[in-house]
Structure formats: structure tokens, C-alpha cells
């Protein structure tokens, strides 16, 4: 039995995610869209905290909400005239999108309902994931060690930095 606070928090988060997700993709003003995305990301971060993954939640806020979204905002500022909204979608386009999305949701939803075996599983408590442990895992070469992906990601990020510089450079 969860604490009531947790349950209330969950519902707030869930509703926020659902509502803002929908708003993100339906609003015609791109800046608003980015803003709604920010709310979604925050809500996601809260889920991570609820799962006791504090580090991940922090990363989510720092990188996603803090970094990526700022990039988005910059990009929007550079490419869009402020206040201008995108033209309305044609109904055909919307229908196609809706069909695809709803099909997907329906199929996955059906899948979830039918494989109900794990769906009712409860949160086990007492998991302690501290920074030390994460650092150990990240730089370990044992089983469950993540040194190789870690290094790969760092190289990727480096490449990405260089790429970003090269691409964005004014010629």
C-alpha cells in the first residue's frame, strides 16, 4: 500500500504527461510546443525520482530540460519569427497521423493488457542507488560494467561537438 502522497503525485504526473504530450504535438506555436515538452520532461524526471533513481532524475533535468530544451529554444528563436503559428494541418494529414498513432497505441495497449502477468507488480522498496555505485558501474569492466558504452558515448559526444562546430560554422 503506497502512501497517499505518492499516489496523488503519481496522478498529477501522469495527467501532466498525458496532457502536455498531447499539447506538445497539437499546438501550432512552436515555442509553446517546446515549453510543453519542458513540462513533460519535468514530469518524467519526477517519475525517475519516484523510482528512487535520483541521479537519473537529475540528469534528466540537467541535460534534457536544461540542455536540450535550451538548444531547441535557441533554434526556434533563430529560425522562426516570433508569434507566428504554423499553418493548420490538412485533415488528411491529421487523419493519417491519428490512424498511425492510435493503431500503435491500441496495439501496444492491447499487448499490455493481455500480458498482464507483470503488470500488477508492485514497487519493491529499499533499493539504494547512490552515486558511488553508479560511478563504479560506469567505469568497471566486470559483468554489468559499462566502461565500453561509456567510452563510446564520450567519443560520440566529442564527434558531435566537432560536427556541431563544423556544421554550424558560417562559411
Amino acid at each position, binding site marked *: 500500500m503506497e502512501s497517499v502522497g505518492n499516489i496523488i503525485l503519481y496522478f498529477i504526473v501522469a495527467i501532466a504527461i498525458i496532457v502536455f504530450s498531447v499539447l506538445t504535438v497539437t499546438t501550432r506555436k512552436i515555442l509553446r510546443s517546446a515549453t510543453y515538452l519542458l513540462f513533460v520532461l519535468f514530469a518524467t524526471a519526477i517519475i525517475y525520482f519516484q523510482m528512487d533513481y535520483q541521479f537519473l532524475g537529475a540528469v534528466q533535468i540537467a541535460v534534457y530540460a536544461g540542455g536540450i530544451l535550451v538548444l531547441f529554444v535557441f533554434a526556434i528563436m533563430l529560425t522562426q519569427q516570433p508569434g507566428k503559428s504554423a499553418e493548420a494541418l490538412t485533415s488528411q494529414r491529421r487523419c*493519417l497521423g491519428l490512424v*498511425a498513432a492510435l*493503431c*500503435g497505441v491500441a*496495439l501496444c495497449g*492491447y*499487448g499490455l493488457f*493481455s500480458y498482464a502477468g507483470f503488470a500488477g507488480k508492485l514497487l519493491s522498496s529499499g533499493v539504494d542507488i547512490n552515486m558511488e555505485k553508479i560511478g563504479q558501474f560506469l567505469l568497471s569492466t566486470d559483468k554489468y560494467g559499462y566502461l565500453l558504452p561509456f567510452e563510446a558515448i564520450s567519443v560520440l559526444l566529442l564527434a558531435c561537438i566537432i560536427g556541431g562546430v563544423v556544421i554550424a560554422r558560417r562559411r
Partner: protein
Amino acid sequence: MPLNLAIVVVALPLFMFLFLGLVGVKMGRKITGVIGVLAMLVDTILAYGVALTYFFGSGEGQIVDGVRQAVVVANPAWLSFTDTLVVRMGVLVDPIAAMMLVVITTVSLMVHLYSLGYMSDHDGNAEKGFQRYYAFLALFTFSMLGLVVATNVFQIFVFFEMVGLSSYLLIGFYYSTPAANHANKKAFIVTRLADLFFLLGVMILSYYTKTFDFDQLVFGPTMSGSLETAQSAISTAGGATFLGCSVMAWALTFIFIGGAGKSAMYPLHIWLPDAMEGPTPVSALIHAATMVVAGVFLVARLFPLYVLVQGAMNIILVVGAFTAFYAAAIACTQSDIKRALAFSTISQIAFMMTSLAVSSNENSLIEIHEGYGLGYMASMFHLFTHAMFKALLFLCAGAIIHAVHSNENDKMHGLHKFMPITSICFLIGCLAIAGIPPFAGFFSKDEILVAAYHRGLGWGLWMSMVACMTAFYMFRIYYLIFFWKKHEVHDEHHAPKDQPWTMTLPLIILAAISCVAGFVPFHDLVTWDGHALHTSIDWTVAGSSIGVALVGICLATVMYRKENPLPERMANAMRGLWTASYKRFYMDELYQFITHKVIFQTICVPIAWFDRHIIDGFFNLLADATNSLSFGIRRLQSGSIQAYVYVYLLGALLLAAITMVCVLL
């Protein structure tokens, strides 16, 4: 003189062709002509030597049991089809070959000499292409000689093609003029069509007899002297049938068609009048004296086979008799003297063909009667004499044309005063062809008529009628050229006159031969089985034939000696007939219609269209279908990332759904 020289006789002109064609073009014009004439002179002397040796010599193996044998001088294999079917390029001397050697070389020499003058302008400068002309003459002479000395039927075919070629080249000598250009094409194609049948005939014949060689086909039967063994070489062929008819009938009829093409028998005669577009000496050599008798020679060569197949003989008889009359009828109205002579040639060759055909009838196989073989001899005799006087006539015509620069007889008239030598020579030629004794034509034509009367009264009367027409149209031409009215001379300097000696000398020689050739003892020398034939002039027939000739001549004299309105009135009275005859009974138009309208427009053009549009269209359609398919597929590759995602997503969902369904069920 050894008979082996016959090889040289044949080979020398070939050498001259190569020499004049390759080296001669680098030399002066006149000098090549002189070299050509000298070489031909040597060739003629050799040919005479060979002929005399053959006829009067008594070398080893020449006479067996009183029969003069055919002598094969050389016979190397040239093209081996199978072990038995081997084409040989040989040299064979027998009576008709020896006779033909004489005829060909004589006329050829005359023409070589004559051309020195004819192919030059009035100042004696040789024309452009003089070397080419002499090279072609040599090529023709070679081909014709090769033809007559052939040891097998395939060799004859080979040289049939070769004489066709030489004729093509010489007719088209003035190749820039459209008329010559059309005429040589026509000549080649028509004779080629005939040669196709010849080829088919040879194919059929050789398939059943397994041989090309005259040795087995022809001489076996004749020399053995018995018609029982005659069939041995071809006994296998005797009973066989091909497509429902007897093989031999097919083969021999086809071979005759081949000969008919070269010899301009109706309806394959249409090329010959047009062939007169060539230089006149060429007409004299090829289209009057030698090549056109190749068909007659062919039938004569295979005579022992034809004897066995009455059906083929009857076809020859009908075609020959009809052509003789048909051509004579046309010759009566032509205004172009060369064309008139050409039709006269056709008519005379038809005489020879008819004569060959009347040599036998159904009974002849069983019992050899008096006239049997007479027709053969007469035909060869007529071939010989005709070559001489027809060459004479053509060369005279050439001299006249050279003098007045026109072929049309209304540009001539009254030339007797200006060209007396030519006039007399032409008259001799006319008398010879009309059959007035003692000129050559009388003797040969008389024999033909005798043979025809032997065959049947109807045939004899028919041929007599044609003989009468012959006399009429020849004298018509003669009078229209040399008399009729006074010649109008516009320019004293260019008044017609007798031509230089190079041209008159051949005329005189040929005229002399035409006078005496009739006394050659042909019945002793040239007979189908080698036995001498004992004939004497049958004065009832001879008298009647002289009679009809005189009638023809008188008629012509009345109508054309002096200018008078009679011919005009006659022509008007029979307007339709006259026009039809003048237009050569519209045979040319018929051919034109068949070739252009029927074959060209309704066969070739649709076939070409079919090929371009249906066959090629099908492959293009394949290509287009592939193309449009790939364009269709390319539309899927739209480049729109969203479309890709959409399709990808649907695909993924589909897969997921399938998996789920499978798992659940």
C-alpha cells in the same frame, strides 16, 4: 594443236580482265584497248585451233566407234559438297563446246576491234572508262567461255551468274544515266530470278542422281548409243516423285526456266530490250550473239535428259513457239532500231528453242525416226549463223547510231547514200536472217522448219509464219534506216558517213562470214549423239520458206521503200493492236505493277513496318514496362522522411500484430 590449249583459251581473258582492271587503269586508254584486241586475237586463233583439232584431228580417244567423244581436258575439284557431289571447274571439249568457242571468240574479237572506234569520239579520243570497258569485255568473254566448256551442270550455273554479272556491268557502263542504271538492275534481277529456278532444278536433279557431271548425266547415255542404258545414270531419279510430280520433270523444267531467263523467253524476256542501254558493241556481243544463247546452250547440253522427259520438252516447245511469234509481232512496230533488233533476237532464240523441242516426241523414245536429232543440229546451226549475222546487224546499228547520235529511226532515213558500206553489210545481215539463199540464215532456218514439220504440220506452219514476219520486220528496219526519204543534213561537217576502219572492218568480216557460214557441214560435226546426220535440203520446205521470206520482203518493200502513207493508214486501221505491239503488250507495265505495287508495297513495306513496330515494338514495350514500373516504385522512394516513418511504423505494427496473433492462438 593439243586440245589442252582450250584451258588457255578460257584463262587468257580472265588474265586480261585482271590485268586491264588492276594495271590497265594506270595506263593510257588507247594502249589498253590495243592490248585487249591483241590478246583477243591470240585467244581467237587458239580457239580456232582447238576447234579444228577437235573436229578434224584424230587424237587419242577422240573417236570411238565412229563417234566423236567429248574430251575432258582438265577437271579439278573446286567445291566439294559431299563425297559424290563435287563441283569441278573443268574444261570439256565436245562438238557444241568447240562450236561455241569459235562463235564466242569470233564475235568477241570483232567487238573488241569495233569498240576501239565506237568507244571514241569523232576525233578518235577514247572515252572515259575505256580500260574498264575492255576489262569488262574480257570478263564477259571469260565467263562465256567458262560456261560453254563446263564439265558439269553446276559449273554452268556458276558461269551463268558470271555472265549475268558481266552483262550487268556492261549494260550499266554509262552508269550515270538513269536509264542504264535501271536497265542493268532489271537485267540482273530478272535473270537472277530465272537462275533461282535453275538452281532449284540443279538441286533436285543432283539430289536424285548424286552427280553434277555431264560425264554421267549426259555423255553416258549418248555415247552408249542406247536409250536403255541411257537411263542408268538417272535411273534412280526416274521413278522418284517430288511434291507430286516426277522429279526429272521438275528438275528439267526448272533448269529450262533458268535458261529461259538468260535467253529471254516469254515472260522473262523483259530485260533484254532494256539492256540495249549499254554500248552497242556490248549489245552485239552479249545481248545478241553469245550470252542470250546460253539458255539454248544449256538445254542443248542437257538434251539427252530432256529427250527422256516429254513434259519438259512440251513446255519448251510451247514457250519457244509463242515467244518467237510474240517477239516478232513486237519487232514489227518498234521505232528504236536497237529495240527492234533486240526483239528480233528474242524471236530468233525462240526459234532455236523450238527447234530443240521439236527434236523429239513421244514416239522418239522407242523408234528413232528420220527427223530425230535434226532439230538439235538445226538449233545449233542456227545459233552459230545467228550469232554471226545478228552481231553484224548490231554492229551496223552501232555504226549508224554513232553517226547520227540517235536510236530512233525517224532521225535516220535515207542513209544509204551516206554510209554505203554499212548499208550493204546491213542488207546482207537482213537477207541472212530472212533466210534467203545462199546466206547463212537460210540453211539453218530451213533445217529448223524441216524439223518443225516433222513434229507436226501445225508447228511447221506456225514457224513459217514467224519466218515471214522476220523477213518483213527486218526489211522494214532496213528501209526505214537507209531509204524511206532523203536524209536531212543540217551540218555538212557532221554529215553521217562510214565509220573508221576499226569499225567497218568487223562489219565486212562478219558480212563475209554470214555469206559463207551456211556451207559449214554442221550435220557432220554437231549432232546430239556424235553420229553424223545425213540430211539433204528438203526442197519442198526450202522452197516454201524462201517463198514466205520473199513475201515478207515484198510486203516491206511496198510499205517502206519510199515514203508513203500506207504504214500510217495500216497502223490507224489496227490502232489497238498497233499500240499494244508498240508498247510491247504492256509486259513491262505488268512487271512494274507486280514488283512495285504488289511485292514492294504490299509485302516489303508491311514487313518492314511489322519489324519496326510489332517485333521491335514488343521489345520496346518490355523496356517501357520496366521503365514505368521502376518509375512507379520510385514514387515510393519519395524522400519524405515522414512517409518513410509512416510506412515503417505500419509495417512494424503489422509485424507486431502478426506475432501477437500467432502467440495468442
